[in-house]
């Protein structure tokens, strides 16, 4: 259990049976009055945000959250299917839950799936993923001198800015946190 004085930004707690993350937090105490803990919370299932002020007598349950390594299998009717390769258990995430990660999902990719109790909530990708360029304009000599980037399309459909010398069929490494090109990968 947590006390109000344990609250801090980033802490995940359970309120009314749903997981919340504290997105903003401040300790306030009006003159001669009691300590108050002003918090902004985000519901980790619905994304809804609200403000709430707690007192020092309030106690909280930690949200039972854990991550499990799973493999991406396929997408069907807006749902993304992932499988635990040891137990063969399968779970589905919605388009919203997958979010930006959809740009990097290639078959059999190992990812971390976040669970609240038994419910899958979201996905954490490896920091770097190698993807094949499926569409690129040809390299016009001299472009690299200007330092300009050019747009290409990757095998997932993701459009990304890359240096002009990157060609169709090549593999590049992308930083999934920034969504940016890092380097070409041989082989």
């Amino acid at each position, binding site marked *: 259990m947590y006390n109000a004085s344990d609250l801090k930004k980033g802490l995940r707690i359970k309120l009314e049976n749903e997981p919340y993350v504290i997105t903003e937090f*401040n*300790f*306030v105490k*009006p003159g*001669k*009055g*009691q*300590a108050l803990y*002003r918090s902004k919370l985000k519901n980790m299932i619905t994304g809804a945000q609200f403000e709430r002020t707690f007192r*020092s007598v309030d106690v909280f349950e930690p949200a039972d959250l854990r991550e499990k390594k799973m493999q991406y299998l396929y997408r069907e009717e807006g749902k993304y299917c992932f499988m635990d390769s040891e137990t063969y258990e399968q779970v589905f995430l919605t388009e919203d839950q997958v979010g930006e990660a959809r740009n990097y999902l290639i078959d059999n990719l190992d990812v971390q799936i976040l669970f609240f109790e038994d419910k899958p909530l979201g996905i954490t990708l490896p920091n770097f993923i190698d993807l094949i360029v499926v569409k690129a304009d040809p390299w016009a000599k001299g472009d690299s001198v200007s330092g300009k980037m050019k747009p290409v399309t990757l095998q997932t459909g993701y459009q990304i800015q890359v240096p002009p010398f990157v060609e169709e069929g090549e593999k590049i490494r992308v930083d999934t946190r920034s969504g940016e090109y890092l380097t070409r990968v041989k082989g």
Partner: protein
Amino acid sequence: MEEEEWVLSKRRESLWVRARMVQAIRRFFIGRDYLEVETPCRIPTLIPESHIDAVASGDWFLHPSPEQCMKRLLAVGFEKIFQICKCFREGERGSQHLPEFTILEWYHRGMNYMSLMKECRELVISISSAVGCGSDIVYQGGKIRLNGAWEHLSVREAFNRYASMSLNEAIRGGCFDEVMACDIEPNLGRKRPTFLYDYPVCPGALARSREEDPGVAERFEFYMAGMELANAFSELVDADEHKRRFEQVRDYRSSMGKSVYPESERFLSALDTMPEAAGIALGVDRMAMIFTDSTTIDNVVTFTPELL
């Protein structure tokens, strides 16, 4: 390590302003014939407070404020005294709170809370000119004007103006503190400083009750930029009333499962000779936040506990 050095060196400018501010405070009181005193910060007994937890130091405590010793000085005949000292409160940490912080506390025999407002105003104006802010302080893009009248707002009026419920409704609903902290305080002292005065009597504040209206305490709080900077009252001098309030606080604390601290017999007996007086405690760190345009108290101290 590099990050810590960087954090500390960024504070150089605000630490200079803070130092000039503290020097100006001393000059102000010395110029008015106040005696600067130093009372022990490690003490065996405490004045009971519903919502202040003390830091233990062996069998004794680090004082949460110098109130007890300074009032005993007042009771034996010291007329005008001030002190700038470190105070300690368990569990208080936020953008405006540190568990170890600096209080300026002063007492003036024969004064009441209304005349103290005037002296508080003169102090702030003299600090402002000493640190080079003059008559307009710019805080987070807003201008606080020191020239002209300051705002005097009773707690009742403040509820009517800023809250969704009246003072009486808030007291009945048990949410006075929440409404004060969330709906009222952020609005106070924005364009000019605000004195919020005439509080409902609360057992932890040793303020005299109004003769004609015993539910009202002769107490004010001073605000700038939505921040509480000082708490003052016409001092309660009635020993029996003290004992009643102490008992209420003790009952409250034990009902909440909080530690009940030893109290001072010497303090209670000193009240027999306690003169009419007014006293005020001002948060030096928060005042420094105002004059350095800082949004966090961390920026106006050398080391926060996290850096130790």
